């Protein structure tokens, strides 16, 4: 008896997919990570934002219309002026970047000044305008700013002015330097401590491990802000801003290293008993060679991801300390220092643009978190 069952069409998958499969079979670890990150559009976009923020920090002098100390007292709490690119006259539209000047009223009772943008009076602004001199990248003396008023005495407050008539935008741009670099340097220090102590803990094990683990547990069980406050308050008043900056960085990383150390130790522990490490040991490789050639490449990607996630925590910590007046202090400009201006709720109510540094914090922390998360996912390209 012959039973003819269903005849299926042969299953042929699209050819393109087969090639992808093939390509992934010989790509190296970093290529795979890059591909996986490339598929995560949010992480990629955030990475671009982070890059832009660091570029802003590097070229702050050029990008900011004014220096951080530039002030025009009569424009205290002046509101933001919208930037327009064209003016209209009898000949029609003409390209002329400008902002509108203010007309000011002084309340006869309270003597408070109110500003109203004056549609009649145009303040011409121009790209690559000459302004205050500075050293680009710390070496090249120049006075060119990306954008500035043609007449340096004219007002141009794209994001408003603070209580002394300083440009909020310029100060926020300058604040990028300190806020972003403190995160980077602080995490750098934490990383050194974390890798050394975590590595020792994970590789030697035994009593050393127990001791270091207890220290980490101890440090992690203490509420950080009161401790930071206690340490930061002891910084002598006579220190220069640079000394204070480094002291704060050291204080932040003295506590911040613990989670990175845990991460390193965890990876060391997990990898130490992996078969490929045992195999390398049986092949007669020395411990340092095993660490360098087998262990470090295996967890480097994870460490990079954790570092990316540690930076925003550091930025938030600096900001919080400076905000309550116990970290960095004026004349240093960091986002936290700038937000001190916003502490008085009455001044914020009249000048909500003082929140701009806060927006800068949120954007940078958010993009670093997204990037870090994407990196963590991509760091293990062999999963899924």
């Amino acid at each position, binding site marked *: 008896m012959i039973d003819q069952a269903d005849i299926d069409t042969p299953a042929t998958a699209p050819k393109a997919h087969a090639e992808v499969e093939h390509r992934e079979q010989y790509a190296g670890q970093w290529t795979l990570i890059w591909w996986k990150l490339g598929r995560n559009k949010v992480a990629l976009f955030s990475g671009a934002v982070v890059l832009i923020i660091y570029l802003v920090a590097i070229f702050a002098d050029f990008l900011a219309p004014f220096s951080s100390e530039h002030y025009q007292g009569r424009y205290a709490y002046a509101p933001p002026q919208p930037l327009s690119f064209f003016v209209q006259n009898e000949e029609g539209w003409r390209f002329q970047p400008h902002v509108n000047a203010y007309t000011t009223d002084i309340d006869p009772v309270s003597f408070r000044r109110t500003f109203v943008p004056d549609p009649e009076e145009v303040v011409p602004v121009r790209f690559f305008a000459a302004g205050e001199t500075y050293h680009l990248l710390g070496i090249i003396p120049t006075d060119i700013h990306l954008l500035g008023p043609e007449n340096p005495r004219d007002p141009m407050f794209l994001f408003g002015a603070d209580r002394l008539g300083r440009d909020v935008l310029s100060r926020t741009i300058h604040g990028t330097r300190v806020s972003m670099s403190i995160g980077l340097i602080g995490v750098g220090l934490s990383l050194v401590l974390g890798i050394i102590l975590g590595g020792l803990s994970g590789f030697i094990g035994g009593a050393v491990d127990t001791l270091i683990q*207890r220290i980490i*547990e*101890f440090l*992690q*069980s*203490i*509420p*950080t*802000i*009161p*401790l930071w*406050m*206690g*340490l930061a*308050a*002891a910084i*002598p008043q006579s220190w220069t801003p640079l000394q204070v900056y480094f002291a704060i960085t050291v204080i932040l990383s003295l506590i911040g290293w613990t989670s990175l150390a845990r991460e390193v130790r965890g990876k060391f522990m997990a990898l130490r008993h992996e078969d490929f490490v045992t195999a390398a040991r049986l092949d007669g490789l020395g411990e340092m060679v095993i660490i360098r050639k087998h262990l470090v490449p295996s967890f480097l990607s994870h460490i990079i991801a954790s570092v990316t996630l540690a930076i*925003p925590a550091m930025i*938030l910590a600096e*900001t*919080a300390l400076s*905000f*309550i*007046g*116990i970290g960095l202090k004026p004349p240093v400009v960091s986002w936290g220092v700038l*937000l001190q201006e*916003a*502490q008085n*709720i*009455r001044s*914020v*109510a009249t000048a*909500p643009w003082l*929140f701009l540094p*806060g927006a800068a*914090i*949120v954007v940078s*922390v*958010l993009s670093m*978190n*997204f990037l870090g998360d994407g990196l963590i996912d991509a760091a293990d390209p062999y999963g899924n």
Partner: protein
Amino acid sequence: MLAFMLRRFIYMVVTLFLVSILSFAIIQLPPGDYLSSMVAGMSAEGQQVDQQFINAMRDRYGLGDPVYVQYWKWISGIVLRGDFGQSFEWNRPVSSLIYERMGLTLLLSVATLFFIWAVAFPIGIYSAIRKNSFGAHLATLVGFIGLAIPNFLIALVFMYLSFRYFGQSVGGLFSPQYENASWSLAKVGDLIAHMWIPIIVLGTAGTATLIRIMRANLLDELNKPYVTTARAMGHPEHVVLLKYPVRVALNPFVSTVGWVLPGLVSGATITAIVLNLPMSGPMLLRSLLTQDMYLAGSFILLLSTLTVIGTLISDILLAWLDPRIRYS
């Protein structure tokens, strides 16, 4: 279980010892001794300085003695007599200043902890089970933003909004009429009515973190074979989820208390400063700025003790929940 608890308890004692050393070190950090500066300050104000009083204080704190003697005199005063020393700025014993503020800090931290759990637990489960739904993506996005906004900024925004749109200040924990009143039922009610803003301010970051942790844990567990087993035995979907993987994912969730609590106490300090709450934060800040170090040191000691005890509780809770820890 008993051995486990005993071991954790011993850890706690050791940790508390280290905490006390650290707090003492912070007291010692500012240059000079506070008694001298106080005497100098009093003389400058033209006050009469009683030499006998100075000698008594010198003896009380062991000033001039070796450091370990000073430490011993300080810590034994606290442990044996509840004497935290003298606040030079307030000219009162520290212990008379801190308890109510510490109590309110504890209250706010614990209330926020429960708030965080109550919000993060269901949202975390939801966003793991329906991981590609709109709601889950929304929760992830809101969570990310919550993580990125520092406490004090949320507090500022709250204050700005309420000032701008309701014309009132949200600072403080009490209405004016209760501020200095003694405790009564009405005052407690007033406290609760004021509490929700600091709870939200303080809880946002923690909620965002815990949602992520719960979601990640549960996603891990949902792929485990025992979930398939439970499903293959015919359990309905909600039992398959709640009785097995959620139960397992709960354990790391509980263990987060150990570090959420320090974070909350930490954040409460800043939040209280910004919102001007009658808690430990503003007084700690002030005492640090004026170098009223016994007061500052006592706060740091007590706040740390609070979190260390919280960690112990979470450890014990975890052991009770997870047999794998209890029996190992």
